């Protein structure tokens, strides 16, 4: 069949079962958008900034496990995608990013809106492709989706010059299958390695499961649950892994690392056997690497051989898909009864994993998260987050019962992630309640998406915890930089002459988020007192459609525990 390049692209998207595509047009992408105009099978969501397109595609992918798709034009459109592509790369999120490009004859001439996006995106993509001949386009599209979604997932960029999208191909056939000789991810773990792992678990007195985002990508949460219960091992989940094991379960001990629970960090330092599943020993988890888990033998299940022994020496590596390996392991592992180790864990935990000091009138940010949890725990809810303190409180104080309910920028820590990610998640999961847990700093990085949300009636609930600071950096400045709040106060600016701190500042906070939301025709509510919190949340959640709720919270509240960067994880700072 004869089709233009753009029509081939649209046909491929439909065949790959893409139902939403997030994008922004531009000169070199006009042929692509023209073909999308007629596509009834998929919905194009016009965002207000390309960075939001890629985060929305990530939100969609993180909520569903399917490949997210975004499209932008050449040059600035393409470069605006880079932050989100890097975000997806670090968190192993399946994504196909499509960029328009100047016509092949103009490549490398510094043409208008030309950027070497294949070169620029190379270090932050799993793979990328420049289409130079329309005959390669069908195969490359098939490969892009295949590579993005298989093995350790990741973003793939496909750069389509204008003469390719506007050109035509006589005998178009979309390939049924794909075969890449250099790409064959290992899925089944080596049986001997799995036996060795079972043996090590059997001999362990203090086993600990440390699981991450790989469990969620693999869909291995049921198998993880079975293993944990069978061997009675406490489970710590990385930020990326939250929801892979029920947050209310007795064996769950919270997140490890810098802002992890004391219980999880103590358990890591005392365990004799770490069973790591789809986690990568990130520096925010290990703290000072040489003093990390000194007594532990380590079993590491991961689909990516390059993750094994990258940071921490591993004793038993098992390369493959977590679900397949865990199924095999569960079949042979020896059950283990609860022991002194479990008692020790319970003693460390006491009655809660995380705590904070409640106050009479002023709103504590942790209280807002707790109340969000109380009001939504009986509904199927997705929490997306911005980045910083609020992200950490959302990780600590909300109990995620299922996977794909906590959507957060883990590896890259991208401010501005939460709002567009919530759009993508809300479109992917129309039956769920989707909440962006935002700080007042981070949300302003993609605040323009209020327009996309309002116009398309995307029912995103925005909870802004407003401490009037770039709180996480301010926290570091308070603790390690002598309280010199350089460029972190969002009330002040370079006109401030002297600063006596938040209690004395007469300046007005800008913007007024409630008025801002109203100008986008989004209902908005504000709470300034502790006792107003629940009521404001209820009003926002009860509205049919999007709503914004702002909470004026204690400005100098810190995230605790906190392991200072580079320190052993059992040396956390705690609230005095």
């Amino acid at each position, binding site marked *: 069949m004869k089709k233009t390049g753009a029509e081939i692209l649209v046909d491929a998207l439909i065949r790959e079962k893409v139902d939403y595509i997030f994008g922004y047009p531009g000169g070199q992408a006009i042929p692509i958008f023209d073909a999308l105009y007629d596509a009834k099978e998929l919905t194009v969501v016009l965002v207000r900034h390309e960075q939001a397109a890629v985060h929305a595609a990530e939100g969609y992918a993180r909520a569903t496990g399917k490949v997210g798709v975004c499209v932008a034009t050449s040059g600035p459109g393409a470069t605006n995608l880079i932050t989100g592509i890097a975000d997806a790369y670090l968190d192993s999120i399946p994504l196909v990013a499509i960029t328009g490009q100047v016509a092949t004859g103009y490549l490398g001439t510094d043409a208008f809106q030309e950027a070497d996006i*294949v*070169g620029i995106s*190379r*270090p932050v993509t*799993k*793979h*990328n492709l*420049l289409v130079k001949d329309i005959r390669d386009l069908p195969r490359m599209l098939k490969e892009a989706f295949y*590579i993005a979604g298989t093995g350790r997932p990741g973003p793939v960029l496909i750069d389509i010059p204008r003469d390719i999208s506007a050109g035509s191909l006589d005998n178009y056939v979309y390939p049924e299958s794909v075969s*890449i*000789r*250099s*790409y064959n991810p290992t899925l089944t773990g080596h049986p001997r390695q799995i036996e060795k792992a079972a043996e090590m678990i059997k001999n362990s007195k203090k086993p600990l499961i440390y699981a991450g985002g790989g469990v969620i990508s693999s869909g291995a949460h049921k198998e993880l649950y079975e293993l944990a219960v069978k061997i009675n091992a406490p489970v710590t989940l990385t930020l990326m892994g939250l929801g892979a094991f029920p947050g209310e379960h007795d064996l769950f001990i919270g997140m490890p690392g810098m802002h992890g629970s004391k219980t999880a960090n103590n358990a890591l330092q005392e365990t004799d056997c770490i069973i790591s599943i789809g986690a990568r020993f990130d520096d925010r988890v290990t703290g000072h690497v040489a003093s990390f888990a000194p007594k532990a033998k380590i079993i590491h299940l991961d689909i*990516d*051989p*390059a993750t*094994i*022994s*990258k940071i921490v020496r591993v004793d038993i590596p098992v390369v493959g898909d977590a679900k397949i390996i865990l199924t095999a392991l569960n079949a042979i592992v020896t059950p283990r009864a609860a022991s002194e180790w479990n008692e020790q864990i319970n003693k460390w935990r006491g009655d809660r994993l995380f705590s904070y000091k409640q106050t009479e009138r002023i709103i504590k940010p942790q209280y807002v998260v707790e109340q969000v949890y109380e009001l939504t725990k009986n509904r199927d809810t997705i929490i997306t987050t911005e980045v910083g303190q609020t992200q950490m409180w959302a990780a600590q104080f909300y109990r995620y019962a299922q996977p794909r309910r906590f959507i957060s920028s883990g590896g890259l820590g991208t401010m501005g992630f939460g709002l567009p990610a919530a759009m993508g998640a809300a479109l992917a999961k129309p039956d769920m309640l989707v909440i962006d847990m935002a700080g007042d700093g981070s949300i302003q990085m993609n605040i323009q998406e209020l327009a996309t949300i309002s116009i398309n009636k995307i029912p995103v609930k925005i909870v802004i915890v407003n401490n009037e600071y770039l709180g996480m950096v301010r926290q570091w400045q308070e603790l390690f930089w002598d309280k010199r709040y350089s460029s972190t106060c969002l009330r002040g600016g370079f006109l401030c002459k002297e600063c006596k701190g938040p209690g004395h500042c007469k300046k007005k906070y800008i913007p007024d988020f409630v008025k801002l939301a109203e100008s986008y025709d989004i209902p908005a509510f504000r709470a300034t007192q502790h006792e107003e919190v629940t009521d404001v949340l209820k009003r926002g959640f009860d509205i049919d459609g999007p709503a914004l709720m702002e909470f004026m919270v204690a400005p100098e509240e810190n995230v605790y525990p906190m392991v200072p960067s580079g320190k052993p994880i059992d040396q956390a700072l705690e609230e005095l």
Partner: protein
Amino acid sequence: MSIRTISVLVENHSGTLSRIAGLFSSRGYNISSLTVGETEDPSISRMTIVVGGDDAIIEQVVKQLNRLIDVIKVIDFGSEPIIERELILARVDSSKSTRHEIIELADIFGASVAHVSATSITLEMSSTCDNADNFINLIRPYGIKELIRTGKVAMAQPKK
């Protein structure tokens, strides 16, 4: 730290070289030498990369290379016996009085004369890298005007 030779079979198309080079540069590793050329199968190129690093670094590099979609096979020669060659071109100052001495030295090393002018002589030699180093040290006193080394190419010795 040791010097290691890694041979990489890759898809022969644009972007592959920069992908591989980027993998080293993003980690701050300096490549000592890198050669690329087509193999018996024109769709596959072979790169021979010489890089310095401790074992953990090399292990990580090999794993990262294997992750790249365009990489078909990575062979870390380690300490296994290899056949290696490097081509050098060296232009050396020469006068009537030194020309014969230089040619004699070249003969000993199996180097040949590629060009002669009134003031210089250009030598060409294909040899192991160690041998090339020795040769260069011996001709250095005559005055090296220009020196080009291709970097190493290497093959494993057959097992039988």
